[in-house]
């Protein structure tokens, strides 16, 4: 039968299939079913133009936005935030001269000089661990805090959007959960919360002359033509003329006005990076990552609760040091500019910046062919950076052993890091998630789930 020809043999199945459920995640409770509407029925049906959200004032020091810098592929902890020069060349390779920071006793990788100047504004966790070396599984672990066999949990961005999005009074057209610029793809983000809580992916390139945000800025269609088209669109709305006062058509007229507010109004201008001064743009670096950081700052300034910068290219089995030499200066400049700029604008106290990948990389350099100096996946021990939102700066949490292979003390599991971020956002650990089967499920896994924990990050609160 030619309509349904896609039977696959089960021999194509791999062990990761269990995780594949992560991509089809959808909510099932009836309440959720009724409410489901992409990007939030409540928010979008409001006739208000884009406004900064009217949320209840949070207690001081509590965060209102999170900027997640996600280094997809797994950045090397040794070459970035946990250098091990004394382990020798076999481990540190050519990057064997870490640099001092403005915090005494705290060293970081030599390709991060800008970050070294502001170490008092962030803390490093050098004892991140989950032990998983698969990209999908590890990305899921780090961003959900759970290693699920049966269910597909939402990422921390989706959970934040659930508790801090439209249902919590967030208003306006800018979606509450945004990814710059592409979704992670092999990770569902929303899990069982469903498509409504997926991030809005901007598409486009913020470093291009026009940042073509999907749906908002159409390259090649001038503002004048947009306006003429809009007028034309209305002039031939014959059915609308035959059904005056129809409630369904009124709704679509409202939808259209909101859409045009995004296309032609202030909401769209938020994405126009040309509104920033040239020296500000230079400061962040005139590349996709740097300009994404600048865009993230603009979104955080407007109160968008969760922004992910999906920065790809860290899966360096080969060409590792060449890649580090190319990417780390970008990372250094963009992230340092972001943290400093947020701080100068008084936004760092209310904005959490966290930077991590799904795991670290083999501490020992893989010199043999075909790797020729590459590094593989390393989930046993890696490092993350955390700044702002009430987290202390200038601290180092935990440590790895002399070669960066194992956690030496104070393991920090993904659930500990995520739970600490929720705490700063004012989302209580015991808040419940709408589990599809009605199982009582807390935001932070409780003892019954047997999720490993080293405790919340009290030392930097």
């Amino acid at each position, binding site marked *: *039968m030619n*309509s349904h020809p896609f039977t696959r043999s089960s021999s194509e199945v791999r062990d990761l299939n269990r995780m594949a459920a992560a*991509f089809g995640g959808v909510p*099932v409770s009836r309440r959720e079913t009724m409410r489901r509407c992409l990007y939030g029925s409540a928010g979008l049906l409001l006739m208000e133009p884009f406004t900064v959200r009217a949320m209840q004032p949070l207690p001081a020091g509590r965060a209102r936005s999170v900027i997640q810098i996600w280094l997809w592929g797994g950045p090397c902890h040794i070459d970035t935030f946990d250098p091990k020069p004394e382990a020798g060349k076999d481990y540190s390779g050519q990057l064997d001269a870490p640099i001092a920071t403005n915090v005494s006793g705290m060293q970081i990788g030599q390709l991060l000089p800008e970050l070294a100047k502001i170490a008092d504004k962030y803390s490093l966790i050098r004892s991140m661990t989950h032990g998983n070396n698969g990209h999908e599984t590890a990305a899921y672990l780090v961003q959900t805090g759970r290693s699920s066999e049966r269910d597909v949990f939402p990422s921390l961005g989706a959970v934040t959007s659930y508790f801090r999005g439209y249902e919590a009074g967030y208003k306006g057209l800018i979606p509450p959960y945004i990814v710059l610029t592409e979704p992670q793809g092999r990770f569902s983000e929303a899990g069982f919360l469903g498509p409504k809580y997926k991030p809005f992916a901007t598409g486009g390139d913020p470093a291009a002359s026009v940042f073509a945000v999907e749906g908002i800025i159409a390259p090649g269609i001038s503002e004048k033509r947009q306006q003429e088209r809009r007028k034309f669109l209305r002039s031939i709305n014959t059915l609308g003329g035959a059904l005056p006062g129809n409630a369904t058509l009124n709704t679509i007229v409202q939808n259209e006005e909101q859409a*045009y507010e995004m296309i032609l109004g202030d909401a769209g201008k938020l994405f126009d990076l040309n509104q920033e001064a040239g020296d500000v743009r230079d400061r962040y670096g005139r590349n996709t990552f740097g300009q994404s950081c600048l865009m993230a700052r603009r979104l955080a300034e407007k109160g968008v609760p969760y922004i992910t910068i999906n920065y790809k290219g860290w899966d360096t089995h080969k060409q590792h040091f060449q890649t580090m030499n190319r990417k780390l200066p970008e990372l250094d400049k963009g992230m340092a500019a972001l943290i400093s700029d947020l701080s100068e604008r008084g936004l760092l106290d209310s904005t959490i910046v966290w930077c991590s990948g799904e795991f670290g990389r083999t501490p020992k350099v893989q010199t043999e062919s075909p790797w020729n100096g590459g590094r593989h996946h390393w989930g046993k021990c890696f490092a993350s950076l955390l700044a702002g939102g009430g987290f202390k700066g200038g601290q180092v949490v935990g440590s790895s052993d002399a070669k960066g292979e194992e956690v030496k003390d104070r393991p920090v599991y993904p659930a500990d890091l995520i739970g600490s971020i929720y705490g700063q956002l004012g989302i209580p650990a015991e808040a419940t998630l709408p589990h599809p089967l009605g199982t009582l499920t807390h935001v932070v896994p409780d003892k019954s789930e047997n999720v490993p924990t080293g405790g919340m990050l009290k030392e930097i609160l």
Partner: protein
Amino acid sequence: MAPAAFAALDPLYESGPAKYRMGADATASDRIDQLVFDRLRELKIEPANVCSDAVFLRRAYLTVIGTLPTEEEARAFLSATDPDRRARLIDELLKRDEFAEYWTMKWGDLLRVKAEFPIKLWPNAAQAYTRWIYAGVRGNKPLHQFVHELLVANGSNFREGEVNFYRAMQDRSPRGIAATVALTFMGERADKWPKKKLDALAGFFAQVAFKSTAEWKEEIVYFDPTADKEGLAKNAVFPDGTRPTADPRTEDMRVPFVNWLLRPENPWFCRNMANRMWAWLMGRGIIHEPDDSRADNPPSNPALLDLLQREFATSRCNMKHLFRIILNSQTFQLSSIPTGLETTTTQANFAWYPLRRMEAEVLIDALNQLTGTQESYSSPIPEPYTFIPENVRGIGLPDGSITSSFLELFGRPPRDTGFESERNRSTSAAQRLHLLNSSHVHQKVSECPLVTEARDMKGKPDELVKKIYFTVLSRPPTEKELAAVTAHADASYAGTREIAEDLVWALVNQPEFIFIH
């Protein structure tokens, strides 16, 4: 809104007042109309006029086969003059391949055909299930036979598609199965039942057992009296309070249940199915929601539901028969132009045809058809991703796990629960943004032959405009619309191609395109 405002007939959308025959030569469709219009008269509601041929054509295509008429089909139908042209079109549509595809999709929603999470059928099984449904719809298998086969199914999930009924639910316990059966085939929500009633129904499904095989993800559904750990089967009672005579120690209790359910006089099955089909075609059930039947949610027109139930039962549960009599009624063919203020009473009594946004799959297929483009769909299950051939249409996707961001944005149901309301047909600003300004839609429009070939149409702009109107809206443009296009062309920058592009874009963004009306 004062009724006077609607007094003049709008020939673009309306053809004249409704007429039906009474007495001996009245057809089933006439009797439907009589019951609907009698009820409206009691309520002092003036029904709408009958819709125009152009409106009927589009409504019939989109409702019956989930497919936009082509330019040629639209031109041919609108130039036909024989008095039976609407009935003839209905007969043709009921025979189309797309009919089977589209209604397989609908059944796929109700029967939760989805490879993974939380349904966990696995792709091979989801596709076997779809193939079984497709064969049934295509052959117009009587619905009682279709349901009988589903409910007594045994065997491998990969080989016997229908056994997946027992796997395609989140809760496969006897009570979970009973609740699913009640929802799907009785139109009742067991969460509103007393526990005792659910336990009694669960007794019929307590012997359904599952076992795995040496093949990865294969599962056998089978009858096993020892599976009934709670001893539910011996206490099985039919929902009408009568008891089965079967011996649960040796007999599969599903069989007496199915025999009870599918008796023609059983009100639950035929009535529920007839009401659902009415809702599918009319946009609203006589009992609303169509899967929430209960004593305190009565039908808005009991005599009408009785008639449909009788017609369905006496036709041996023939889905196409019921479709045919509904589609041929004046009630189905009423215009969407109201005669007064819209209220829940006018809606519940079908005074005019409701505006219904095209379903996600139907909308993307329509956009692809009129722009001559295709879509890529993928399924992340199993890893590595399955990519679907690009000529597959949205309505033909065999598994709810196969998707695209467009389908999600436009409310394709996740197929988790089997509720009719899982399919979201509301509109949102995000949808408008997508249709108005996404690279996805801009690209389709700019690549479409209507636009790319427009360069050669210089000198005959009206022909081009007509062609575009027939392709997108299935009708010719009005004088006023032609004038508006000319005005836009005169006022703007552009050449023929840009005007064609603007027009295609503006028409796919019209409510008249987006809504079935």
